[in-house]
C-alpha cells in the first residue's frame, strides 16, 4: 500500500508553505491578530486582579480606580473579540481557498495523467486522495497551525505574566505541569494497542456485513439467516470487548490530567496564600488580586499542553496526507502533443500497424511484432481467448497507451505526430463496460455532439432501438439517471452507448463487445443500423459471438499477443486452424 512509503517525504512541509504563499499577507495578519488576541486574553485576569485589589473591605474600596479598570476590561474584551473574529474569518478564507486550489489542481492533473497510471490505481484510492486527503490537509495543517501557534503564545504569555507576578510560584507551576503531559502520554501509549485491536475487529465486522448483506438474497435463498446472525454475533461480541477497553481507557486521559491540574491549582493556592500572609504589610506585598490572577493562569496554563499534544498527531497525519496529494500531483502527465502535431481531418481510414510491440509490465512481453493494415472502410474483427490482447489493441489504437516499439499510422501519419484530440475525435467507441454519467438521458446522448437537435437525437435512438424504452421512462429523454444507469438494464445501457455513437458518427469505429448484453433478438434488429453505420467506416469489432464476426472483411485471430491467423471467415474455416476450432465449438453442441 501507499502508506508504507512514508509519504511525508522531506520537503513536504516546504511545499505546503508554497501553497500558502499567495496568502502570505493574510496569514501574517492572522498570526499578528491571534498573538494580539492571546495577549489581551491573558492580560484580562491582570486587570480583574487589580480591580479586586481595589475592593479590600468596607471603606477600603477605590471606586474611581475600579471604574477606570472596568472601562479597560470592557475595551480589552471588545478588542479581543474583534481580533478573534477576524482571525476566524481569515483562517476560513485561507483554509477553504487553499483546499479549493489544491483540489482544482489535482483534478486538472488527473485529466492529464496517462491511463497507465489510472489503470494501476483503484478509483477509491484516487478519490480519497482528492477528497479526504485534501480535507485532512486543511484541517490538520491550517487548523493545527493556528492552534499550535496560539497554544505556544498562550503558554509563553502565561509564563511571562506569571513570572512578572511572582517568579517563585511560576517556577512551581513550570515544575508541576509536565506531570499532566507524562500522564497523558502514558495513557495514550497504553490505549494504542486497544485501539488497534478495536479497529481490526471493526474492520472484520465491516467485511462480514459487506459480504453477508451484499449476498443477502443468497443467504435467504439458502435459509441461512439464523446462522448468519450467529456468526455475526461472534464478531459482535468480540468487538464489544475490544471496544469497551479502547473507549474506557482512552477516556481516562481527561480525568487524569484534570487531577494533575487540580494538584497544580492547590499548590498555587497554598504557595500564593502563604506568600500573601508572609508579605502582608511589607513593601513587596503579594496581593489577593495577584493571587486571583495567578489562579486564573494556573487553570489556563495546562490546557494548551493537552491541545498541543493532540495537534502534533494531527499535524503528522496532515503531512502524510499532503505527501499523498503531492505524490499524485507529481505523477508524470501524458507527454504533450508535439508542437508541430497535425490535426487529423478528412480521414479515409487506412490504419497501419507496423511491427508494433507493447506490454503493460515491461518484464512480461505481451504484443510483439504486430503488423497489419486495415484498408479504408474495412470491417476488422478481432477474435481470441481472454487475455489475448484484444483490449490492449484498442488501447493502442485510441492512443490511451503509446506503443513501446514500431508505429501505428492513420492515413500515413504516425499517431505520435498528430494531436490526441483529433485522433480520438475520429474514432467512435462503444465498450463492453458501459459508462453513463449522472444526468439526463439526453446529456448522455449528446456527449460527442453537444449541438445535436432533438430530431437528430431521436433518429439516432430509433436506429439503435433505444427510442422505444426511453419513451417509456418517466420523463423520456429528460429522465435523470444516476451514474451507472440505475434503473436501466445492462442491455438498455449498451443501447444508449450505441445511440451515442450513432449520433456523432466518426469515420472510424471501435466496438468492443458492444452488444454483449443485448439479447439476440434485439441485436438482430439493430444489425441493419449497425451495418449502415459501419458502411464506409473502418471498424474494429471485438466480439465473442462468432455469428457477429463472420461478416467481417478481415478476421484477426489473436492468441497471447500475437496474430496467429488472418483472413476472412471462409478462408479461415477452410484452413482448419484455431478459428475453425472456435467456430465449430459453438455449433457442435447437442443436449
Amino acid at each position, binding site marked *: 500500500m501507499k502508506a508504507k512509503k512514508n509519504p511525508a517525504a522531506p520537503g513536504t512541509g516546504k511545499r505546503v508553505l508554497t501553497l500558502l504563499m499567495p496568502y502570505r499577507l493574510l496569514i501574517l495578519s492572522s498570526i499578528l491578530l491571534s498573538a494580539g488576541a492571546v495577549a489581551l486574553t491573558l492580560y484580562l485576569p491582570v486587570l480583574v486582579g487589580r480591580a479586586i485589589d481595589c475592593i479590600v473591605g468596607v471603606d477600603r*474600596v477605590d471606586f474611581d480606580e475600579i471604574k477606570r479598570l472596568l472601562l479597560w476590561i470592557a475595551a480589552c474584551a471588545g478588542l479581543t473579540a474583534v481580533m478573534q473574529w477576524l482571525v*476566524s474569518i481569515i483562517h476560513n478564507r485561507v483554509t477553504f481557498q487553499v483546499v479549493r486550489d489544491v483540489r482544482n489542481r489535482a483534478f486538472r492533473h488527473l485529466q492529464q495523467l496517462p491511463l497507465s497510471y489510472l489503470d494501476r490505481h483503484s478509483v477509491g484510492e484516487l478519490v480519497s486522495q482528492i477528497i479526504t486527503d485534501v480535507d485532512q490537509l486543511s484541517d490538520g495543517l491550517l487548523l493545527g497551525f493556528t492552534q499550535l501557534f496560539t497554544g505556544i503564545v498562550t503558554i509563553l504569555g502565561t509564563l511571562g505574566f506569571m513570572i512578572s507576578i511572582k517568579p517563585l510560584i511560576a517556577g512551581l507551576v513550570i515544575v508541576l505541569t509536565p506531570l499532566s503531559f507524562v500522564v497523558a502520554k502514558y495513557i495514550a501509549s497504553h490505549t494504542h494497542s486497544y485501539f488497534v485491536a478495536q479497529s481490526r475487529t471493526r474492520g472484520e465486522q465491516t467485511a462480514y456485513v459487506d459480504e453477508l448483506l451484499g449476498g443477502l438474497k443468497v443467504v435467504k435463498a439458502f435459509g441461512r439467516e439464523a446462522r448468519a446472525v450467529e456468526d455475526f454475533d461472534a464478531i459482535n461480541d468480540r468487538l464489544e470487548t475490544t471496544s469497551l477497553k479502547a473507549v474506557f481507557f482512552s477516556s481516562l486521559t481527561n480525568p487524569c490530567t484534570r487531577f494533575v491540574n487540580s494538584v497544580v491549582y492547590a499548590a498555587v493556592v497554598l504557595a500564593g496564600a502563604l506568600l500573601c500572609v508572609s508579605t502582608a504589610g511589607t513593601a513587596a506585598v503579594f496581593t489577593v488580586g495577584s493571587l486571583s490572577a495567578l489562579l486564573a493562569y494556573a487553570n489556563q496554563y495546562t490546557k494548551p499542553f493537552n491541545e498541543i499534544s493532540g495537534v502534533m498527531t494531527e499535524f503528522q497525519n496532515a503531512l502524510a496526507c499532503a505527501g499523498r496529494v503531492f505524490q499524485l500531483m507529481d505523477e508524470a502527465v501524458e507527454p504533450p502533443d508535439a508542437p508541430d502535431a497535425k490535426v487529423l481531418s478528412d480521414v479515409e481510414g487506412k490504419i497501419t500497424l507496423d511491427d508494433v510491440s507493447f506490454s503493460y509490465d515491461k518484464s512480461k512481453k505481451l504484443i510483439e511484432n504486430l503488423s497489419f493494415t486495415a484498408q479504408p472502410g474495412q470491417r476488422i474483427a478481432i477474435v481470441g481467448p481472454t487475455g489475448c490482447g484484444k483490449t490492449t489493441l484498442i488501447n493502442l489504437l485510441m492512443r490511451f497507451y503509446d506503443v513501446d516499439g514500431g508505429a501505428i499510422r492513420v492515413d500515413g501519419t504516425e499517431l505520435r505526430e498528430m494531436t490526441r484530440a483529433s485522433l480520438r475525435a475520429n474514432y467512435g467507441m462503444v465498450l463492453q463496460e458501459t459508462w453513463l454519467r449522472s444526468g439526463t438521458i439526453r446529456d448522455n446522448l449528446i456527449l460527442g455532439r453537444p449541438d445535436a437537435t432533438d430530431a437528430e437525437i431521436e433518429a439516432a435512438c430509433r436506429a439503435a432501438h433505444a427510442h422505444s424504452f426511453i419513451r417509456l421512462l418517466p420523463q423520456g429523454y429528460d429522465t435523470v439517471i444516476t451514474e451507472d444507469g440505475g434503473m436501466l438494464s445492462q442491455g438498455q445501457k449498451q443501447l444508449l452507448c450505441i445511440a451515442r455513437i450513432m449520433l456523432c458518427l466518426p469515420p472510424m469505429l471501435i466496438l468492443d463487445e458492444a452488444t454483449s448484453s443485448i439479447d439476440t433478438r434485439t441485436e438482430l434488429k439493430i444489425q441493419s443500423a449497425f451495418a449502415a453505420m459501419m458502411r464506409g467506416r473502418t471498424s474494429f469489432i471485438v466480439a465473442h459471438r462468432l455469428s457477429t464476426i463472420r461478416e467481417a472483411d478481415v478476421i484477426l485471430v489473436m492468441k497471447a499477443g500475437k496474430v496467429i491467423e488472418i483472413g476472412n471467415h471462409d478462408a479461415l474455416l477452410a484452413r482448419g486452424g484455431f478459428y475453425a476450432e472456435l467456430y465449430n465449438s459453438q455449433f457442435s453442441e447437442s443436449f
Partner: protein
Amino acid sequence: MQKLFSYLRSYRKECVLGPLLKLAEATLELFIPMIVASVIDRGVGGGDKGHIIRMSLVLVALGLLGLGFSVTAQYFSARAAVGFVTKLRHALFAHIQRFPYATLDRVGIPTLITRMSSDMNQVQTGLNLTLRLLLRSPFVVFGAMIMAFTIDATAALWFVAAIPVLAVVVFGVMLLTMPMYKRVQERLDRVLGTTRENLNGVRVLRAFRKEQDECGRFEHQNMELTAAQQRVGKVSALMNPATYVIVNLAVIGLIRTGAIRVQAGILTQGAVVALYNYMSQILVELIKLANLIINITKSLACGKRIQSVLDIQDEEQVQSGLPGGDPSVRVEFDDTAIAYGGSAGEALSGVSLRALPGQVTGVIGGTGSGKTTLVNLIPRFYEATRGRVLVDGVDVRAWEPAALRAKIGLVPQKATLFRGSIRENLLWGCRDGTLPSASSAEDRPIQDKDLMEAVEAAQAADVVAAKGGLEGEIEQFGRNLSGGQRQRLTIARALVRKPEILILDDSASALDLATDAALRRAIRALPYKPTVFLVSQRTAAVRHADQIIVLDEGRVVGLGTHDRLLETCPVYREIHESQFRKEAAV
C-alpha cells in the same frame, strides 16, 4: 426513537450511575471557588496559615475524589454505550435478515451497510459523550449560578442575566449553522461523485475529448462547495467572540456590584474572587457544551436512520386459510401477475403454468422480459400481486418460508460465494451439515461423497481440484475464482441439498458451450429427479425441456415444446433464428 432506547434498558444502572457520578464530580468542582474564597478571607485576611494548608489539602483531596468519581463514571458510560450499540447492531442485523427481496430492492444494500457500520459508530460516540457530559455542562452552568446565589443574591443577578443571553447565542449559532453544514456535506458529496464518475468513465471521456469540460464542471462544483463552507464559517466564527464578550460584560457587572456590596460591608473580597471564578467556569463549560450538542445532533440523525430501518415491518407472514390446489403438481402458477413497488405497470402478468415432479421447464425471453421475476416467485422472494403460486398444491404464502426454501435449490444469475473453504460454501444450504429431508427423522450427515457428487454434476470437479480440494479457501465474494468457476460452484452448492425444485437462473452464461451442454446432461441424469426451472436467453439451452415458457416484456407469448413453439410462437422463432440463422444458410 423509542424502539432504539428500548435496547438501552439492560444498561439502566449504568445510564443512571454514570451521569450521577459525573454530577458528583462537577459538584466537587463547584466547591473549589468557595474554598479559595475561604483561603483568602480566613487564611490571608486572618493570617491563619494552618487554615491555608488545610484548605490546600482539601483541594487535593477533592481532586482525588473527583478522579475516582469520574473514572467510575467513564467506565459506566463506556459500558452502556458500547453494550447498547452491540445489542443494537445485533438487532438491526437480525432484522435485516428478515427482509423480503422487495424491501431489499427498495432500501438498497449500500444504505443498509452504512447503517450497520458508520451510523452505529456515531451513535456509540454520541451516547458515550451524552452520558458523560450532557448533564454535567448545564449542571455546572446552573450550579455556578446557584452557588453565586448562596454568596450573594444581588450579585448573582448578573448570572441570571448572562446565562439566557449566552444560551441564545450558543443555540442561535447552532440552529443557524446546522442546515448550512448539511448543505456543505451535500456539496462535498457532489464533488466526490464527480471525481468518481470522472475516473470510472475516463476512457469514454477522453475518447470524447471532454477533459476541459470536466475540469470546468469540477471547478464549478468545487467553487460552490467553498462558498458554502465560507458562509457557514462566517456564522460559526461569531460564537466564541460573542460568548467572550458576554461573559466579560457580566464580570464587569459583578465587580461593580461586588465593590458596592463590599463597601456596604455585605460582601468580602474573597467572595468577589469566588463570584469571578464561577463566571469563568461558565465560559469553559459553554464551549464544551457547544461541541457536545453538535455531536449529539449528528448522533441523533444517525440514530433516526437506524430507527427507520428497524421500523420497516416487511416480514413475510405465513397466511392461513388460503385455498389449495392439486398436491401432485410440484409448482403451479395460477394466472399470476406481479408489479414491483413504485412502478405502474406489471413486470409480469398472466402466467399460468404447471410443472410436474421431475419435469424440466425452460424459461426464455429477451433482456427485461421477466424471466428472473417468474422464478423468484416460487421461493416467495417476491409476492404475486395478482393470482397465486402453489408448491405441492399449497399456496406459497401458506408455507413456512424456511420449509418452502429448503425444498428449493436456487442458482442465481449473479454467482455469489462467501469467504471460507469450498466445503463451507457447499454446505451453505445445510444447517449443521445434515441433509434436510421431508421427514426430519431421515436427516443424515452429509459426507464428502455427497459433496463430490454435486460438484461433479455441476462440472466443477476441476475447480475444486485447482483450489486444492474441498478445504480450498475462497476469498470474499469469490474473488479468487473466474466467473465460470464461480458459476459452477454456485450450481454445486444448490445441488448439495438434493432439492426437489432446482432453479437455474441464466446461471451458465459464463460457461463455454460444451461445458454448458455437459451440465445440462448431468442435471437430467440426477437420480433424485428434481423439478427444474431453466432460465436462459438461448434456445439451444431449453430446446430439450419438457415445456418452454416464452416471455416478452412481461407477457407470456408462448408455452409448449421446442418444436411446437417454432411453429406457433413468432417470438420464439425469432429468438431461435437470431441464434441459428447462419446454420440454416451454411
